[in-house]
């Protein structure tokens, strides 16, 4: 075929067609979304609890015990512990139409309450709630920020600190306390401590600074913009002094840093210490005088559940999470506590659990009582000055 016979698309025609296609395409998703939302809104499954939650919610194997105790099936969909992803799923992707319980770090529910995305919890419908420790019940992050109404039910929780090498640092082992200075401000760990690369690190630094009177901070878990900036300034000074070796991003990073000898003290999650020990690292999870990062993953009921007619089933599921079985299954695995570790201990003893597992559950009970009674601090996943936190953390990492 000769060149002159080949059809030509002029620039003008191309731009016209592209503009028309773009207009049509941008409208299409909105139409499709409306149609799919209608289809999914009726997706309730009687006898099944559809839970959206983090990987730590999961008990390896299956939910046989849950099904046996409640008569309900469990369908768990995993969600990253990221507030942005969570809000996007709930507010944009209509998670409430697809799930019966949505679980996320407590303190995230402020925008959900404001936007009427979730309903308050009637704790009288959870029999096991009565025996929950006051230190847990009174967590301000379970409320709606401006009212005393409780909006969440704790599913699992812990009091985070940091992992450290007691022999290498000549520091005592738990339950003797060691200072957070090993992470933030100590010659012994200069160039060999590590923190996370997310903005929560500023919250932990703020708690340290508040305790040691290095700054005036009202609420560590919900700092003002100027407080965040002052914490970032101090962290930058520590960074320039060479305190930090690295800033982990994932659970695997935490383990790798310990096992490969990159860090001597590192803010981390307790399961990272357990895994690192399995790989030969002689590390402990600190008990500290200054503060504990008390957090809980809580379950919330989406507003759409009122139309599904399965609130009874949802509360039955919540009662199971507050019971003995879940605590006994989860505790030895991750070191996390559930709302009633006392019931978990009884449940484990009745079933002749190993001495090691019973000790792990008993330790969780002691941990809950002691660490949760400490004044500082209940972690809040979404502070009011969220954007400022992220900006200051970026400034710290970029210095």
């Amino acid at each position, binding site marked *: 075929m000769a060149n002159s016979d*080949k*059809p030509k698309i002029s620039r003008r025609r191309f731009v016209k067609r*592209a503009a028309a*296609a773009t207009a049509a*395409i941008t409208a299409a998703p909105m139409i499709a979304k409306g149609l799919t939302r209608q289809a999914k809104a009726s997706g309730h499954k009687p006898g099944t609890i559809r839970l959206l939650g983090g990987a730590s919610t999961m008990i390896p194997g299956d939910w046989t015990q849950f099904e046996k105790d409640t008569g309900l099936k469990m369908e768990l969909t995993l969600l990253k512990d990221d507030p942005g992803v969570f809000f996007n799923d709930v507010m944009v992707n209509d998670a409430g139409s697809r799930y019966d319980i949505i679980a996320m770090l407590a303190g995230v529910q402020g925008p959900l309450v404001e936007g009427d995305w979730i309903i308050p919890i009637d704790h009288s419908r959870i029999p096991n709630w009565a025996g929950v420790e006051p230190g847990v019940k009174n967590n301000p992050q379970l409320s709606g920020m401006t009212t005393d109404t409780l909006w969440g039910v704790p599913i699992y929780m812990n009091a985070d600190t940091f992992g450290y090498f007691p022999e290498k640092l000549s520091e005592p082992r738990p339950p003797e306390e060691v200072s957070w200075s090993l992470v933030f401000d100590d010659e012994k760990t200069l*160039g060999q401590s590590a923190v996370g690369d997310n903005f929560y690190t500023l919250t932990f630094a703020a708690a340290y600074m508040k305790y040691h009177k290095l700054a005036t901070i009202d609420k560590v878990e919900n700092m003002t913009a100027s407080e965040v900036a002052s914490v970032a300034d101090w962290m930058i000074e520590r960074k320039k002094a060479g305190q930090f*070796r*690295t800033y982990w991003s994932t659970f695997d990073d935490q383990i790798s840093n310990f096992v*490969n000898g990159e860090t001597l003290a590192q803010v981390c999650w307790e399961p990272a210490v357990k895994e690192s020990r399995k790989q030969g690292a002689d590390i402990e999870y600190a008990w500290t005088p200054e503060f504990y990062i008390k957090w809980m993953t809580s379950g919330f009921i989406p507003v759409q559940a009122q139309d599904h007619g399965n609130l009874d089933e949802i509360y039955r599921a919540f009662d199971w999470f507050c019971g003995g079985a879940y605590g006994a299954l989860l505790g030895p695995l991750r070191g996390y506590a559930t709302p009633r570790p006392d019931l978990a201990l009884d449940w484990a003893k009745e079933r002749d659990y190993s001495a090691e597992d019973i000790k792990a559950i008993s330790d969780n009970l002691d941990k809950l009582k002691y660490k949760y009674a400490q004044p500082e601090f209940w972690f809040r996943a979404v502070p009011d000055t969220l954007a400022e936190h992220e*900006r200051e953390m970026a400034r710290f990492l970029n210095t």
Partner: protein
Amino acid sequence: MNPLPRLRQLAAGGGFIAPFTIVWVLGVLVPVLGIVVFSFFRSRGVTFIFEPTLAAYESTFSHAGWQVLLRSARITATVTLIELVVAYPFALWLAKSARSPLLKLATFTALTVPFFLSPTARTLVWRVILGRNGLINTVLLEIGIIDEPLDWLLFSETAVHFGFLGPYFPSMVWPIFLSITLIDDELIEASRDLGGGRFHTFWHVILPLSLPGIVAGMIFTFVPMMGDTVVPQTVGGGAVLMLSSEINSLFSVMNYPVAAAVSTFALLFVVLFQFVLWLVLQRSGGIAHVFESLRR
């Protein structure tokens, strides 16, 4: 009825241009335009406030976003140039000197097999090599060159440069290899017959004819590297904040307009990079003239 002749007719007549254009518009142009458009609005949580504003761009400059962009562009451009310098002689050898089919096959396999592993697994090995207790430090300590481990080998820009070299080597090698393979050996022989030495033949025959491969290699290396998520995190250790981490961080706090603004700047950097390439190729008669060599 056999549809192939009709399809061939359509293809020869340019009949696939319109559907291809639609696919390109849907899959590429609309998302990119969407990002640029949203960078001119504000957001509150997951909701956009559709009042035009430059607030996101102002925030990018007051935020660390601008530093991240410059750092990402600098590191990416540096590694791309290093890749070109290392990959070109390798591609030349592979195309014109390596005669043994077995050797070629082994080389192709060595270049390809690592990509059956996940990017994280491929990069994680650098931690074992560059770490405080890694291979390099252990050897240097053993032979007494150093008294203390070299901390800067890992969780540093040096480590990020190393980390990028391996995964992006094939993306530079393959296009150059292909374009050099297409060079007729008779042209090279003719140059030598006419008295041209090795360097003269390379400079005046091989290099100009391999320019399409160089251009393609640079684009296929630079552009994906700008958005790489694995290497900066795995061996940078959070100490080398690059574009992907920054955008992830902005997304996690639902700062979508600033994420869009940072992405728009990144897009401009890519366009600038291609503009620089275009300028450089003007000396060779322009980019169209360079790619004409592929027709021969």
